[in-house]
């Protein structure tokens, strides 16, 4: 989710300005508002209003198809989620596992790949393109392909010589989805790390090697501190996108087997859309929002710049 910030208003000038300046200034401001209006309008219509609506609907028994007079039900939906809905807890468990595994794995692998392709060898562009390819392929297509590969008579078993029905066994389904998700997204993290690497001033490396620092010491004392802002950015964006895991689940497993791969977003869509229980789905979204917000704030706190 991106946040938009209104351009800061121009500070009030103490002294009256010459006429021409202020008119130009007003014109610029009008133009600025004009240019931002379309984006602001779209964000309000498609993001702000739905978000506010779902906050309100979470406290009602609104249903798809008869949205006219939803009745106010207070905290009923929230109580139901926390006490009468085992799928909710399964979803929470799965998403926790997913985030805890995918964030370090995808971030770390992305860094390794970035270091590998950040060299001046012939043909290195080819590698960059190959690693980045899954990112620009539609997630639905990638999920379909992996679904076939994970089948009992699929490619994965053919290569490994195993005979596992990956997506239909409770203990292998989530790991299978994790492997596929890490592979799909790692190219994007690689590009981010790469841009971080290339923004580090080259003189620092020269100075370090003059001081007799080896490869590892250079990495520890030049590269790592230089990558700090990139690290913070990647850490937080992977976490948020890992939380909203949905497409792979919808295409590959439908949350099964026995809730082994269901996630909060998948559960919200099942309840709110497929089963038409808009009120309950909204309540779940609200809970999801609070969880993601809390985790993100915690991350911001942990990675704050220590002055």
């Amino acid at each position, binding site marked *: 989710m991106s946040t938009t910030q209104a351009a800061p208003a121009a500070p009030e000038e103490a002294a009256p300005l010459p006429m021409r300046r202020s*008119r*130009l200034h007003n*014109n610029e401001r*009008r*133009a600025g*508002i*004009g*240019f931002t*209006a*379309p984006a602001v*309008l*779209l964000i309000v*219509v498609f993001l702000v209003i739905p978000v506010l609506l779902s906050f309100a609907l979470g406290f009602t*028994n609104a*249903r*798809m*198809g*008869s*949205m006219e007079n939803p009745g106010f039900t207070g905290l009923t939906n929230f109580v*139901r989620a926390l006490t*009468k809905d*085992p799928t909710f807890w399964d979803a929470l468990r799965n998403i926790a596992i997913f985030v805890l595994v995918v964030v370090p794995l995808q971030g770390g692998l992305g860094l390794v790949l970035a270091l590998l392709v950040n060299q001046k060898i012939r043909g290195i562009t080819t590698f960059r393109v190959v690693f980045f390819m899954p990112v620009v392929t539609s997630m639905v297509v990638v999920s379909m392909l992996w679904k076939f590969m994970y*089948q*009992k008579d699929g490619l994965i078993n053919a290569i490994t010589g195993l005979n596992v*029905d990956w*997506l*239909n066994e*409770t203990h292998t389904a989530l790991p299978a989805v994790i492997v596929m998700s890490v592979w799909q997204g790692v190219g994007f993290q690689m590009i981010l790390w790469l841009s971080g690497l290339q923004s580090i001033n080259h003189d620092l490396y020269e100075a370090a090697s003059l001081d007799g620092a080896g490869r590892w010491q250079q990495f520890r004392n030049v590269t790592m501190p230089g990558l700090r802002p990139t690290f913070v950015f990647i850490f937080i964006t992977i976490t948020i996108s890992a939380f909203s895991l949905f497409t792979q689940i919808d295409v590959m497993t*439908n*949350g*099964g*087997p*026995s*809730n*082994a791969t269901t996630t909060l977003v998948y559960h919200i869509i*099942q309840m709110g*859309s*497929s*089963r*038409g*229980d808009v*009120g*309950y789905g909204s309540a779940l979204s609200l809970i999801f929002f609070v969880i993601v917000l809390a985790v993100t704030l915690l991350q911001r706190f942990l990675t704050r710049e220590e002055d």
Partner: protein
Amino acid sequence: MFHKKPVALASLALVPALALVGCSSQGSHSSGDGPLEITLWTHSAGNEGEMEVVTQIIDDFNASQDDYKVVRQDFPQDAYNDSVQGAAASGDLPCIMDVDAPVMPNWANNGWLVPSGLTEEDTADFLPSTVGTYDGEIYSIGFWDVNTVLFTRASVLEANDIRVPTVDEPWTADEFADAEKKIQASGEFDYVIDWGTGSSGEWWPYAYSPLLQSFGGDLVDRSDYSTADGVLNGPEAQKFGAWFQDQFAQGYASKSGAQDRTEFKDGKVAMHYDGIWEYAEGYEAYGDDLVVAPLPDFGNGSKAGVGSWQTGLSQACTAEQKEGGLAYLKFAMKDEYIAQFSDVTSLIPATESAAELTTKGYYGEGKPLQIAQEVSDKYGEVRPVTPGYPVISSVFEKGLQDIMNGSDVKSTEDQMVVEIDADIESAGYNN
């Protein structure tokens, strides 16, 4: 005045944004001269045979009179119900639309569908499961019916000393268990039976609730549709759940199959459970060796899933369009079209007289698929006629998948009941 340019340009950019906010899929209505346009939604996109017949009916109808012009919009079946849900929420429904039989009561209850105006006289010749009746009104009409049967091979049964089941004498539960054991022991097949659990969606309740009913359970208490307690989690339902789980635990069936269920044709399984639409392919593979049988009787009679897609009129029809829509329905109910549908789909024609007109040789006295009609008549069991059905369907699918994957039967069935009852309660269907 140059300084005004940026503002003007920026406001231009607003135009598409505003257009996004209020778009509508309703076609323009010609007024006065020319025929009145009526939009029709079909779920058959991608199904060449069905599309061909639908197109033919619409063209013939438009050519037969000057008052109305039916305009077709196609949707793939998987996306159809979601599209209707979305359109209903934004007031964009078409006037004539397809509806899957078990979902009809829900749409009628939501007010999306309106009584079609068809009378009992109009539908007297139709199979009962093709007439969508709710609250004493006829809402929708189907041109064919489809039921579920077991496909197997006479030669395999004979080799393993298993009786060939008939419509009048289906296998008993014990006979079926014995047959599965024998076939498994023969070692000739990867699995005994392909239940079709690799498919998803409405197929689950359609295909497996008849098994549940054969054990004596049901999806919901049909006396007043107010609860699933006692029927979906009672002792009979638990027996069913345990039996179903066992089918996979014992290795009789695979949980996931080939994408298009080719195992039976390839000789990897001995039996195949499916809709009657599979007949043509099965016959192509095995000819007269192919056996079409009803499901085994697990104590409460053999059962078969019936009820399929139908067509009805929606709340979006103006009074004038509704007349046209009704005229279209009656036009499409002609025997020649019903026969044509049956010929391209191999499904059961909705009327006897249409069955006589079919040219494929599937239906009619002494024809191979006469059995499907008999199974429908004797064992057909429609899914619960209640607006709560879509949720019942989705809960049952998920719960039974969990049971298949080894979840505890009793607690899974109890949870299904909790969810179904919560939905009936919160929607207030019974108030």
